[in-house]
């Protein structure tokens, strides 16, 4: 389980890094999406893995925190997901705006001379 998650984070992060180093703006936005998945998962696993222990304190009586998943990383990641959407939208608009203004989708706004 742990190994699978760790490898998955690595693969998503690696793919994202490869993409944000590419010259086309669409590649960069894809890379940023993949990196944000990886980072969100990475923050999430700071609370360790737990199955069938959702942080819902439905029972009566005293609460034993060790029986539940850690809610703090979850709250952090939840806001991170929503903010991630907002920044993606901003990047997208800047991306298509730059494309309209410069006539190219290169990240520098001009084609690199080869």
């Amino acid at each position, binding site marked *: *389980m*742990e*190994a699978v*998650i760790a*490898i*998955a*984070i*690595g*693969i*998503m*992060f690696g*793919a994202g*890094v*490869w*993409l*944000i*180093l590419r010259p*086309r703006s669409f590649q960069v936005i*894809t890379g940023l*999406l*993949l990196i944000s*998945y*990886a980072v*969100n998962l990475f923050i*999430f*696993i700071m609370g*360790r893995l*737990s*199955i069938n222990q*959702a*942080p*819902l*304190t*439905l029972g009566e009586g005293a*609460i034993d*925190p060790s029986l*539940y998943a*850690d809610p*703090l990383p*979850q*709250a952090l*990641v*939840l*806001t991170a*997901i*929503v*903010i991630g*959407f*907002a920044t*993606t939208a901003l990047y*997208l*608009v*800047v991306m*298509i*705006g730059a*494309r*309209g203004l410069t006539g190219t989708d290169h*990240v*520098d706004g001009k084609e690199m001379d*080869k």
Partner: protein
Amino acid sequence: MLLLLLILMPVVGSIIAALMPTNARNREAWLAGGIAFVGLLITAYLYTQIGTGELGTGDVVRYQLEWMPDYGLNFILRMDGLAWMFSMLILGIGVLVVIYARYYMSANDPVPRFFSFLLAFMASMLGVVLSGNLIQLVVFWELTSLTSFLLIGYWHHRADARRGARMAFTVTATGGLCLLVGVLMLGHIVGSYSLDVVLASGDLIRAHPWYLPTLILIALGALTKSAQFPFHFWLPHAMAAPTPVSAFLHSATMVKAGVFLLMRLWPSLSGTPEWTLIIGGAGLCTLLIGAFTAIFQHDLKGLLAYSTISHLGLITLLLGIGTPLAMVAALFHTLNHATFKASLFMAAGIIDHESGTRDMRHLRGLFKVLPYTATLAIVASAAMAGVPLLNGFLSKEMFFAEALAVGSARNWSMSAAAVLMGIFSVAYSLRFINVFFGPLATDLPRAPHEPPRWMRFPVELLVLCCLIVGVIPGLSVGPFLNTAVISVLGEQTPGYSLAVWHGFNLPLLMSVMALGGGVLLYIWLRTRHGLIQSNRVPFLYRFNGKQAYESTMLRISSSASLLEKLLSTRRVQPQLLLMITLLLAVPLLIVRPVSLLTFSDNGEFSPLFAGLWVIGAICAVAAAWQAKYHRLAALSLVGGVGIVVSITFLWLSAPDLALTQLMVETVTTVLILLGLRWLPARITPKELNMRATRLSWFRRSRDMVVAVVAGLCMSIVSYAVLVRSAPVGSISDFFMTRALSEGGGSNVVNVLLVDFRNFDTLGEIAVLAVVALTVYALLRRFRPAPESLPIPAQQTNNVDPAAGQTPVQQVESGYLMVPAVYLRMLLPIMVVIAAYFFIRGHNLPGGGFVAGLTFAVAIIVQYMLGGTTWVEKHLRLQPHRWIAFGLIIACATGLGAWLFGYPFLTTHTAHMTLPILGEIHLPSAFIFDLGVFGVVVGSTILILVALAHQSVRSHRLPISNIAPVINKEAN
């Protein structure tokens, strides 16, 4: 209180003046003059409070405001004799300059700006002289530099004005920075920035090891401001300013700030050999260089500028000599110089104004046409030259006496320098008044005549002062001067007498020598040396301060651009590469890696989960591979990764995250799909028979290595974290145990968001709202690339019956009718689901974020199938209002806590019993969550709809361009 008023009046006046109409010359002048005059009256009245002190105990008027009391800094205004004298000077000359400027400024000049800057300068200069706190003094000091910059550059269409302004600002502001450091050191030595304390601890300062650096830094500030050698070069270039500015700032007041500072700090800093060497040395060089250079100027104002430099040098030298009598002479000469030099500048301005030129090679015989002005200017220049019965004579006499006193002890060089300076100043004064004699010049740009009555009035008044002070010094200026002297020297105040006649003595002989020598030098230069033709200053032209300044500036900027070229790039990719490499390298270098890790798998293995992530990994890698040439495929693959991440969250006990991730995934995909249309078509190189170059292969393999290393590091770190047990006693336990009892909800994640950490959430929804509005604003100015304007090829395909139809026509002709009806029926159900998620959010997975996204998706699918036009015809959605109400609700919930005396955003749970429904919990966090819901709905819809509207807009615009394209495709 009056002191504060003194500074506030010009500040307020400056703001009022800036708001007046351009052609309100009279009103502006009345305002500025009135303020200066009232200030003058206040200052004159204050004399009754400070002038009564006994000898050695001059009274001080103080005003204090708390500024940063924790740091021992207070806003202190403090007027003693010295400050009083300078305030009178500033306000008195200020009134006259305003009157003069009213007639000097042409109707075409934007006067509000002029008077506004002038008043701002007056305020800052008063601030300098009245400051009772050293830091505050430096602040006002820099403000005078700034206003001087603005005033020199007043005619900003002229290159010389801009250059002069820049030069003056660079030099004086650099000096100001040195002064700041010096003052900070001084404050450190003394332990307080209060002037009273600093003045009282002279011995402590002089004995301190930091004395020399402090002195040098403060001297740098003072010497740059007062245009002392080797920083004197900025003053002649500042003459590009309008003449009233030159008269006010660059002869009477601002350049005196440097000597004022030296006088101010005289009790604490002077009296050491270093002081004499630095201050006196600079003064001596300036004195001679300025006077000598002045003779060879052709510009009237240039001559006066160099003469000002020389006279400032004289004052500085007197201060450098350091004896109490020299201090008296310095103070007296400051006053005298201000009167005669301001009047000379105004006279020069009149000549320039009336004849159209300031070039002394052309000006000739002006006495015939400007008899009054000429008489006044001649008297003032006589004062400058030090002719008896005028004020300049008296202070110069005192200077000679001091030079003798210093010189006789060692040698005669000081006295010789003094006489030499006297000779030079007589020569340049003659040069100046020469423009009035001889036959009237015929080649002047304008026919000169006497200026208006009130333009001459300030000159008349100042020249009258020169005369009165020159004839009866003891009765006119004596008591005031005495007050100023006492305030500086205290018990050291020497006996001195201000009198015209001291009997036959050496200083008188020196004066006579200077007068005679000056006349002879001038005649010799005129007849033998060709003064009129000379284009450069003999001997001194080699030492060109301006040249040094320019080349220094050039070197600084060229080395800066060289550094930028070497160390930076404007390209994104190298920057990102560097960032990621550092991100990987720095932690690896700091911590000892791998060896710390223990590879022991202690978790159980689930084949289903592994299979899920095989799919996820394939999607991620394939997305990376396809993102360049197959954007749609890449987008779908990224969506696939998102779904896998969402399932992972669900699997690992995070139902809230899973829901949010799923909804965000949907919205993001729609968002990017809307954006794809505006990107250029890209065809794979294989179809174009292109091959990648070696360079791009190198780049790709390099990036591949970086990416693989990055992924590997991330995996290792993640694994290292996962195989360790969770820390015991983390803050999470607190949240877990109190969520239900104190937050009133059993969904701990939601309680965290809307209760425990709701201030963070408030910040987050504010960010969301800002981003949405930014996106909207950016898209309002969106200009697509020309080739993406026509309808995309996919839509013009003639297999599709809807091709060629506008979206409106498509809707009317029943295009996609079945799914549209189906989705319309789904809308209420989706809204109910959103409401359900929202209501149960506090106790079960759900909440404002998820509900908001669900609601937004419900609306978006209507747009997708019904078309923008149809949806907006049937639904009045105003996303801006959703955002606004959401934020207001969230903030109001927070503020509501204040009504009950709790801190911002304190929550409360109300228990209500309703009929039928029974008892329900209504936490205030629920209302906060409603705000979150509103902002999320508004932002998401606003972003997507704004983007969708771009397609509608571009369809609407170039109909004529699209039609032929469609026809061609159809054929």
